[in-house]
């Protein structure tokens, strides 16, 4: 596709359930970032991928959060045993390489845990 695609755009889940959020970066982009944005707040860094490897996982808030990237393309962010405080918009961005000057963002997945 022409841009970064995230799915689903909205997800409502019950507390305790697992969820998977998907990000399709722009074709050929090697760098991929996940962020979390709570209502009206800034972007909290979660994890960064360069190709399939994640040099920096320091932002993952707990061991309930994990992410993987396969084939240097699609990435999945998994949240296990969701809690209400996990409710937020999860944004994905990709850039051509680590030092490319522009990161392109998807429109995010709004996660609501009830």
């Amino acid at each position, binding site marked *: 596709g022409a841009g970064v695609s995230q799915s689903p755009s909205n997800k409502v889940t019950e507390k305790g359930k697992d969820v998977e959020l998907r990000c399709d970066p722009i074709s050929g982009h090697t760098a991929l970032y996940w962020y979390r944005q709570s209502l009206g707040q*800034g972007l909290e860094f979660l994890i960064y991928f360069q190709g399939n490897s994640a040099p920096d996982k320091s932002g993952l808030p707990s061991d309930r959060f994990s992410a993987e990237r396969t084939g240097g393309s699609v990435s999945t962010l998994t949240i296990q045993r969701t809690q209400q405080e996990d409710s937020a918009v999860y944004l994905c961005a990709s*850039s051509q390489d680590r030092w490319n000057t522009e*990161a392109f963002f998807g*429109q995010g997945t709004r996660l609501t845990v009830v």
Partner: protein
Amino acid sequence: AQTVTQSQPEMSVQEAETVTLSCTYDTSENNYYLFWYKQPPSRQMILVIRQEAYKQQNATENRFSVNFQKAAKSFSLKISDSQLGDTAMYFCAFLGGNKLVFGAGTILRVKS
């Protein structure tokens, strides 16, 4: 660790006037990039302007310009001739090392 600070949670400006949004950052890196992103209510993040740290000249994109003070680690955004469509959340961001780090954002409201 790199940090980005935006000290103005909200700003307002009259249409056609000029407004400046502040940003400071902290890093030990010498080579890095700085950005301003705009996030309108649609939630889509849009790059407004970028600055390479090794360039002394301030970046300019039409009505948007920056005042980059490397020694002071300051990177403010000036919006001239403000338009209603400029109403959005503005994020300052730093790219260095492994991270693209964002500030907390400034909500800008342009009033008619």
